[in-house]
């Protein structure tokens, strides 16, 4: 049963991709994709229920016990990422009904989209390092396809940079996996926790940890590895950029959180300290970068970077509160940032551009959209009582608790500068009259396009508000997530079984024989 629940969020999008692709030439494809997204959400929620009921759940794929086979595992962090992925997926699938032209559907948009979701979900659920690499690649190649789908010159130009830098990070990550395997002989992440601690040459572990940090850092778009993001996120279709903005970098953050709480915890004074500075620079350079931009989506893109810094900061500070903040930030930011990109798409449809100098008048003519912009925008800026405030609050409080004044200062300053950018968009796209005298009223777009585009915007905005006004369950969830991250005993037990969770003593393990269980006992196949 648990196995079912863990597999379905990955299998459903794959199956949907296959069927949607086979039906891509007709109108059925988009509805199949939508239906699959609904199913994914249902499956994710079922998994969430299971995790809430049982704590960390795990299942051994192919029925080979960990660490020999591949384990899928869902702890609080994992499952919430899966759910939020499904939500974002559904929102975007609805949006695509209005936005994605038939030409792109025939080129396989829905299949690429669903495999992207499958890859992201797989990355969140896998408990195996190499398998994580595979899901990264599924996600990456799908994102390549989606990024350049449509083939405008900007897209191709952006695609070159996006592809090049992401491939490099992938290969760094892959090499890191190889080296880690070379040191420990295992790939199971729970197993790696003990195995890495038992490695004699801990300095070398830290060197390899740096490779992971760089590999994930590029994915997560931290300073100074984020170049690919502002170079590309403003070019694809809006549904695509919304999914990218919401999910892709978060996979990097998630992987960082996972590896640097579960496996690379031997030299926190070095790795996490470094990550603090990286995070601060990420937050600051991102938000400053946004200030230089004059395009709706480019501004949003730079803000992704800036916000990523908060999340990695949560990890870097490495206290329960900080990690809690990091997790809360992840969830909040996916919803909010995806929504802002969706809004930018609607603005583009109504006002004819995303260049802030060439649009305007949305406040007057489309007040409803204005409200729907304000909610995520000011949530992003950390205005209470929207979701972003609590996220920022947790991080700032964590840094003040640690008496890291400078960290708290930068966190707050970046929040302020975020307001600057959000109000820039507000001022230029909404308040300012349209420079061409156009009245961007909603009826400029036919209802068949407008409604699918507005529904997800409304839905995500409502979620932002709900999380903001009633944060208690989410905060509690984030707290348990953080506790599980800081003390992965439950995770390790769920994966490896009872008795495996005892932390390996580095001194004792060096002369001990590697534990090889007899095949007859461990081989799960009857």
């Amino acid at each position: 049963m648990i196995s079912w629940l863990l597999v379905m969020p990955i299998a459903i999008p794959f199956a949907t991709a296959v069927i949607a692709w086979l039906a891509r030439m007709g109108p059925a494809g988009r509805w199949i994709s939508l239906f699959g997204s609904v199913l994914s959400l249902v499956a994710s929620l079922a998994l969430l229920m299971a995790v809430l009921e049982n704590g960390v759940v795990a299942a051994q794929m192919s029925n080979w016990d960990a660490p020999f086979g591949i384990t899928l595992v869902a702890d609080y962090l994992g499952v919430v990422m899966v759910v939020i992925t499904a939500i974002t997926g559904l929102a975007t699938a609805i949006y695509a009904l209005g936005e994605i032209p038939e030409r792109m559907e025939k080129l396989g948009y829905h299949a690429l989209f669903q495999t992207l979701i499958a890859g992201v979900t797989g990355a969140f659920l896998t408990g195996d390092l190499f398998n994580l690499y595979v899901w990264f690649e599924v996600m990456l190649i799908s994102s390549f396809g989606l990024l350049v789908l449509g083939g405008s010159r900007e897209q191709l130009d952006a695609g070159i940079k996006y592809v090049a830098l992401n491939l490099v990070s992938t290969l760094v990550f892959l090499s890191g996996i190889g080296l880690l395997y070379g040191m420990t002989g295992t790939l199971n992440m729970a197993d790696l926790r003990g195995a890495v601690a038992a490695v004699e040459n801990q300095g070398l572990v830290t060197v390899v940890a740096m490779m992971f940090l760089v590999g994930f850092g590029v994915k997560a778009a931290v300073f100074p590895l984020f170049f690919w993001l502002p170079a590309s996120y403003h070019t694809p279709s809006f549904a695509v950029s919304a999914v990218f903005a919401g999910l892709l970098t978060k996979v990097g953050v998630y992987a960082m959180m996972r590896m640097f709480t579960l496996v690379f915890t031997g030299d926190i004074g070095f790795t996490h300290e470094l990550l603090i500075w990286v995070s601060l620079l990420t937050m600051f350079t991102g938000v400053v970068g946004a200030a230089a931009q004059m395009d709706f989506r480019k501004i949003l893109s730079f803000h992704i970077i800036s916000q990523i810094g908060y999340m990695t900061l949560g990890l870097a500070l490495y206290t329960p509160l900080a990690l809690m903040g990091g997790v809360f930030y992840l969830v909040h930011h996916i919803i909010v940032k995806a929504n802002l990109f969706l809004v930018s798409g609607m603005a583009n449809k109504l006002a004819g551009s995303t260049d802030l100098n060439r649009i305007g008048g949305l406040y007057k003519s489309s007040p409803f959209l204005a409200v729907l912009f304000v909610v995520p925008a000011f949530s992003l800026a950390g205005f209470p009582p929207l979701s972003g405030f609590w996220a920022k609050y947790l991080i700032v409080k964590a840094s003040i608790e640690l008496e890291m004044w400078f960290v708290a200062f930068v966190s707050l300053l970046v929040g302020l500068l975020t307001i600057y950018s959000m109000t820039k968009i507000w001022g230029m796209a909404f308040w300012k009259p349209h420079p061409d005298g156009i009245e961007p009223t909603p009826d400029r777009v036919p209802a068949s396009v407008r409604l699918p585009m507005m529904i997800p915007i409304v839905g995500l905005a409502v979620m932002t508000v709900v999380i903001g006004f009633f944060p208690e369950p989410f905060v509690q969830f984030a707290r348990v997530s953080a506790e599980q991250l800081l003390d992965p005993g439950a995770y390790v037990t769920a994966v490896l079984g009872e008795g495996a969770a005892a932390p390996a003593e580095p001194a004792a393990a060096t002369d001990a024989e590697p534990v090889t269980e007899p095949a007859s006992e461990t081989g799960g196949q009857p």
Partner: protein
Amino acid sequence: MEALTALIVGLLVAGSVYLMLARSFMRFLFGLILLSNAANLVIFASGRMTPGAPALVPYGADAPAGVVGNALPQALVLTAIVIGFGLLAFTLALAFEAYRRLRTMDTDKMRLAEPKEDGK
């Protein structure tokens, strides 16, 4: 042999980095191929190297008789090779299409998405 493989990997990485830093995206592609090879060799060498004994269970036996090559990194490398091929093929298509539409392979001149005067 791991030591020598490490040196080979070092050379391949150095070569690929040098190529990837070039202005021509074609050279980047070449570097990418080299780097994939290097990463595969890293995995392969990390599993330690055994000459002349494929990881096969002989007919009539339940397990390989002596020490055989480590099968796990082989499977990983195989997976990585195929994935690498997929990525490379896509990248090649991208380069091809980019050249067709942008008329350049010089990445210094690819400034459409981030034009020079950007940030005004």
